[in-house]
């Protein structure tokens, strides 16, 4: 399908006076993909997810909680809109309270986002700004933990995918990465005292092993909570990876990227990542969630096929 004159993709401003008539053909409304390739079939832009979690050999319990959900919204002549919700939480606190805290925070956040973003998305569109829904989704968990599980806490990283956009709310030292083959970029900041000490020159890397897990921000802690809010593009051919420190504490970013790049599917990538973290000693619970848009898995399968 050829583009008409002056019909660039979104964001490209056509040359003024390149034509004196208004563009009449409808371009794609969502998606930054090539308008010429608007085949508008799911198979053109698959959205695949993986999730794996393990207790590991050292810990008695798995205090991580996680969630991955997605669907497509295809209507009229628009490209199918991928919609997804991905959550990783890592609880802390004795007597099994850690796992209760992470599970509670994960479920409450999911419920809130589904109620205030997804369900309205099927009607008139959300009325409350997405950032506010995300902030509330974390605050609800925070208050529930303070009320029901005093002394316990949890990290919480919530990622919401809407078309080309990913919105992230983050508290603690779980991480969100954005990756493409050969490239992995850390999006989130660890809310750990150790990182801050390093930043202000009051600690050396070798000093902080034991300080690594002291968080200055976590659900269940403090008078209130203000998550970091991020907004990124999730383009076709890239993937979003959420994990707890049980993964990034055991594997370097380069190792994570390398494993993802060669995995046959997002689910296999998650399994390989967890297995590798455990093979390294698996001192903590390991959880990883991966959401990929298209490449490289499709390309690889095509080649295999």
């Amino acid at each position, binding site marked *: 399908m050829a583009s008409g004159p002056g*019909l*660039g993709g*979104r*964001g*490209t*401003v*056509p040359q*003024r*006076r390149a*034509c*004196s*008539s*208004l*563009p*009449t*053909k*409808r*371009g794609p*409304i*969502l998606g930054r993909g090539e308008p010429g390739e608007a085949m508008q079939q799911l198979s053109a832009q698959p959205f695949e997810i993986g999730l794996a979690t393990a207790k590991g050999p050292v*810990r008695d319990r798995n205090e991580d909680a996680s969630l991955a959900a997605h669907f497509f919204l295809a209507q009229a002549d628009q490209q199918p*809109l991928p919609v997804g919700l991905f959550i990783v939480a*890592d609880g*802390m606190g004795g007597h099994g309270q850690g796992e209760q805290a992470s599970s509670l925070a994960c479920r409450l956040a999911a419920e809130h986002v589904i109620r205030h973003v997804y369900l309205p*998305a099927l009607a008139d*569109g959300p009325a*409350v*700004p*997405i950032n*506010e829904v995300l902030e509330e989704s974390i605050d609800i968990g925070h208050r529930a933990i303070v009320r029901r599980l*005093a*002394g316990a*806490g949890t990290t919480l990283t919530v990622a919401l995918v*809407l*078309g*080309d*956009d990913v919105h992230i709310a983050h508290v603690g*030292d779980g991480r969100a990465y954005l990756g493409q083959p050969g490239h992995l970029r850390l999006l989130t900041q660890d809310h750990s*005292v*150790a990182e*801050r*000490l390093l930043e*202000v*020159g*009051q*600690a050396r890397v070798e*000093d902080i092993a034991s300080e690594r897990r002291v*968080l*200055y921000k*976590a659900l*269940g*802690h*403090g*008078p209130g*909570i*203000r998550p970091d*809010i*991020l*907004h990124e593009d999730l383009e076709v051919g890239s993937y979003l990876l959420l994990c707890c420190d049980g993964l990034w504490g055991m594997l370097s970013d380069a190792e994570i990227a390398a494993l993802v790049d060669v995995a046959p599917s997002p689910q296999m990538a998650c399994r390989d990542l967890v297995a590798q973290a455990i093979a390294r000693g698996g001192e*903590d619970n390991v959880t990883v969630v991966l959401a990929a848009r298209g490449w490289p898995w499709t390309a690889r399968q095509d080649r295999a096929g």
Partner: protein
Amino acid sequence: MARHPEGTLPAGIVLQERYEILGVQGVGGMGAVYRARDLRFSSVTKIVAVKEMNNTAPDPRVRRISLQNFEREANILASLSHPAIPKIFDYFSEANRSYLILEFVEGQTLESLIEERKQPFNPEEVVEWGLQVCDVLAYLHGHEPPVIFRDLKPGNLMLRTDGRLMVIDFGIAKLFEHGQRGTMIGTEGYSPPEQYRGVAEPRGDLYALAATMHHMLSGRDPRLEPPFTFHERPIQLFNPNLPEALEAVVSKCLAYDLQERYASATEMGKALSAIFPSQFRSAGGLGPSQFTPAQDLKPRWTFRCEDEVRSSPRVADGVVYVGSYDTNLYALDAQNGSFLWKFPTQGGIVSRPCVDGDLALFGSEDANVYAVSRSAGRQVWACETGGRVRSSARVEYGHCFIGSDDGCLYAINVQFGRVAWVFQSAGPIRSTPLLVGEVIYLGSDDGYAYALEMGSGHVKWKYSTPRRLTSSPVADENLIILGSADGYLYALNAGAGWPVWRFRTRGPVLSSPVVEAGTVYVGSADGHLYAVEASTGRERWKYDTGAPVTSSPAIGEGMIYIGSNDEAVHAVDAKRGDRVWRYVTGGPIPSSPTVHEGTLYIGSTDHYVYALPA
């Protein structure tokens, strides 16, 4: 023993056959603090505080160490005697719990006071309290062996009804928390960096005191910020009346490196007491308000129209184009303000003219959209709408897009002045359309933000707000940002129209936002110019002009310019939100400035157009 569901002791329980629990004062991580009556004093009511340590560690060794620490700490407390430290009367253990019996202090912690006031405290007040704490710290640090408080924070400072401060909670509970495995939640935002290396040092208490003072003076809770970031929030940003000397004392104590802080609490106390010389202390209202509207800024030129200039200037090819309520569009020499030509219409001109080739395009309150030859100052065409035109034109694809009070957005062929299509909304369109790629974004006074297909005017999406949208949208990344008369600034997903964030001001936002380097700037009728992070909608700073703002900001080098109803043009530092200069005209300024090659052009309701050195 019967216990409450939360594990606290119910009223009426008697400990050691002597202390009758009357009620819970507070609950902490390791147990509660109770108000109790000492029954040994039968003829008078002697009230004591009972502090409970819940020793529940599963490991018996940890339990034993915890108990030893508790007893050691109780013994230290028993050796202290200072009016600002509660007396200890007794300690004992009962049923896995340990108890301290302490002097009961009637009052309110600074933490609850901060919550109550919700605004920065007076410098005089905070200095007075700081001096009192320095005095206790000097006593503790000079004790043999020295006592390091380690956990100074507003929650541990009790303001008694007589105005004296008491230091409460000697960090005993903290000792119980060691020995945990795995992830812990640490820091309350007031602790010094070296404490995380296990260094407990007198100068750490000075850091915590300064952190507490910073919180009270700035109103910014350090528990909600990353640790050790006080220097990123200078108090003067939030509390302009703060003496610089106080900022300096607080900042010195907050140095990462303890060698850079004051050597002792006594030294810090000396520095604090020098800030307000005693004869002026507690005089009240001492705050320096030496604000002078230094009007040393000289306009490069001014030009007088016959009526108010609400229109915003446009500069192109050395010429300033601006409309006036006197119904004329003026062309003025940008260098010296000399008159080139004027074009009369039948109504006031309030929008910003648009320039395309030789044409100047603009609307008038006479309901027409005009295209005027810039070289000749003569009409090329006029296109009639059904209402006053207050929207400003945008040109793309050889078409002019402009709104009208008749509720329509018009797409008009620039060459011939023919209407290509019309989009009808349910309220006047005064917002100026934004064109990105092939999509037109605009607001309408019907409360909707619309995204239209450029070719057809068909609605791609719309988003409803409760009040009129007069503000013109701006794009940043994948967001469309515009203000609403409901007081919010909205950011909508450009593709789908879903709201991503909204930022609340306290007055209608009729001003149109501008974006630069990830920051949105916008004015509000609440009198402020706001700087908001574009991706999150979080406030970076606000600047008070003193009167409602409907003017839209303009960006210069590191500066933001805006007009206000206080009759002045304001130049504000883009990073910090500080005033750089302020130029007073003879009337309110709804006109929006334009900055071009070092000169700022703006109109005022005093009938003048001003060219000011930016």
